[in-house]
């Protein structure tokens, strides 16, 4: 096991990793930018080190700053969290070159899975059905038009790197494709420093279902079931739940088993998530793998009782998994609500400002992962996630009831949050019946969605 881990991230995930380190009895150092000096992770850490200014490019995204901080504080491993450098194989390689361990897949494995388009082909070779898509990266406009014709509209333009909906556009015609390509390229370039794009067939009515897996260095892999992340706004997940209401138990189990077999065969290592689109007929198409801990991992932790962050750290340290598929037992139903500092009435514009009041909800099956506290100043430089409310109950109806109660109990004052959208979701017929699709919020429009909930 590691002696000391540098936590190279911020917000709620820095806190989550700190907690995992404490559980494992490993010392931790929180690396922070000047804008996060007052963050809860910094306050709770035994040791913290300022690595740069607010601008993430010079702090959380600066490989030299992060590695230098790890070295001067005597760390032997770096946990990148999610986002920032978490899936950067170049960073992982430099970390290794300095004699430190990157907590995640080893660099050569990150590299193997770095290209989303290449990963799709790799896992297709290992038996996963994949969504029809372009043959390789789009070379130019002509190539894009040819490929889109072959796949058939509508198609989704996707950047090879990154995530979070940046550089992504769904287009229905050749003309839309032409105009969107340039925008996507510049967005992808700005967000990920890489403007390679590819195309995927767009399924109008689909569910986003993902499988959580963990594979140790010795090729032992397990899955932890799936999560349904179909509640999205412009490709950004808002609410996640498990199990998915979209598939029967037999179909879920079959998909999970296929997924873990494929990633083990493809040589994956550490925790990871395989994302699938499930169409109306229940057919699951593999779209991409996330080689990191994900925002929504607590949903799975609530069902299985297994600490995924600790598992990730143990695998990176070279420990065997220590349990088999039979030991992973999922119970009940869990829902995670992403609480964002966003204004639902104004295009979900990110908000910054001071938290005037904060009261976290509690009670049976209620978990709040958040880095805010009364008086905390939410900086404007980073994503708008304030925290995650996760509820668990023996069944979906119970989880929804606990979710509604917990959302009412949650007090977050001082800035505008997206709480109304969650309250609206829990009154929405499609959601209550488990029929959410990824396009529903955008099709209805958030304003209409909120208004409908207020009428009911």
């Amino acid at each position: 096991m590691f002696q000391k881990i540098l936590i190279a991230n911020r917000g709620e995930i820095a806190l989550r990793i700190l907690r995992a380190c404490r559980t494992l009895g490993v010392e931790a150092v929180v690396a922070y930018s000047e804008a996060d000096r007052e963050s809860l992770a910094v306050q709770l850490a035994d040791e913290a080190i300022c690595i740069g200014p607010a601008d993430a490019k010079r702090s959380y995204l600066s490989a030299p700053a992060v590695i230098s901080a790890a070295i001067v504080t005597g760390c032997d491993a770096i946990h990148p969290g999610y986002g920032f450098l978490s899936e950067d194989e170049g960073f992982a390689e430099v970390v290794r070159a300095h004699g430190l361990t990157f907590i995640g897949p080893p660099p050569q494995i990150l590299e193997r899975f770095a290209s989303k388009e290449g990963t799709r082909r790799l896992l297709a070779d290992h038996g996963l059905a994949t969504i029809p898509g372009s043959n390789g990266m789009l070379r130019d406009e002509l190539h894009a038009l040819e490929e889109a014709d072959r796949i058939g509209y509508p198609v989704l333009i996707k950047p090879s790197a990154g995530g979070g909906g940046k550089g992504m556009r769904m287009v229905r015609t050749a003309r839309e494709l032409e105009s969107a390509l340039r925008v996507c390229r510049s967005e992808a370039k700005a967000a990920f420093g890489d403007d390679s794009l590819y195309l995927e067939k767009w399924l109008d009515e689909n569910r986003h279902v993902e499988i959580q897996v963990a594979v140790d260095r010795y090729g032992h892999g397990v899955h932890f079931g799936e999560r349904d992340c179909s509640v999205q706004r412009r490709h950004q997940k808002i609410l996640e739940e498990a199990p998915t209401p979209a598939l029967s138990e037999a179909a879920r189990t079959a998909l999970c088993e296929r997924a873990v077999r494929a990633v083990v065969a493809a040589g994956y290592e550490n925790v990871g998530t395989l994302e699938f689109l499930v169409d109306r007929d229940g057919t699951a198409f593999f779209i991409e793998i996330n080689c990191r801990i994900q925002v929504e991992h607590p949903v799975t932790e609530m069902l299985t009782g297994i600490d995924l962050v600790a598992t990730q750290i143990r695998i990176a340290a070279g420990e065997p998994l220590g349990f088999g598929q039979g030991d992973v037992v999922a119970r009940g139903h869990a829902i995670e609500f992403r609480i964002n500092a966003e204004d639902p009435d104004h295009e979900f514009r990110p908000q910054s400002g001071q938290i005037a009041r904060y009261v976290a909800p509690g009670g049976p099956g209620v978990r709040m992962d958040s880095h805010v506290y009364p008086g905390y100043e939410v900086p404007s430089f980073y994503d708008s996630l304030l925290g995650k409310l996760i509820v668990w109950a023996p069944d979906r109806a119970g989880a929804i009831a606990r979710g509604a109660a917990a959302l009412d109990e949650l007090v977050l004052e001082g800035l505008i949050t997206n709480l109304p959208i969650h309250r609206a979701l829990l009154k929405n017929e499609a959601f209550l019946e488990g029929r959410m699709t990824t396009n529903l919020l955008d099709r209805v429009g958030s304003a209409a969605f909120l208004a409908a909930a207020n009428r009911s």
Partner: protein
Amino acid sequence: MVRHDGQRAGDSQRAGDSQRAGGARRSDAARLADHAEIDRLAEDLLPALIAKLGASGLGELEVREDDWTIRLRRPADEASGGGRKAGERATWSAGGGSGGPTVNPGSGSASGGHGASVARSLAAVGPGRAAEEPPHRAVATSPAVGVFHPRPELRAGARVRAGDRIASVDVLGIPQDVVAPVDGVLGASLVEAGEPVEYGQELVRIELLGGSGPAAPGHGTAGHGTPGHGPAS
């Protein structure tokens, strides 16, 4: 505020010697070690503590480090009021002394042992100056997280100009320049050579020139090798 940078070391030794004359005999090595320690505390810790005390509403501040205890106390009449400039005194002493900052070599020897009284008034430096104006001081901060390396040829007292490279911070073996934020005279180094530093950490103090400050020219010039450029005003 108290002024003591630049000229302190020599004064301190003289003061220490004279005051200790009647005390127990000690080896030279022990005395030198004490002086070095006092210098270090004076340069590293005391100025920061004075600033902290000044900024706070507190009357007294005490810090323990290794064998040393430093206690900083505002004179009673000032602890409650705002005006602290005039007549402020900072006294270093071992083993008691009332009022002002006290530095105690620990291990129980403070009250009766060798260090009986290393005491002097820091306010004696530039008499009257402290009353005239608040300190004109700036601090060069770290441009990165890494290991601090001062420029060995630059000592306290050296003239520097804004933008001069006065030290570096090694980031994975690549030196990043620490530059003087203002024209002035190098003051205390707040970090030991070879120590890890974080981004934005205060590294080297710069005394601004101008007014009747205790500038200490003649120790050489930093930067681009243009000797004798005058102080900024």
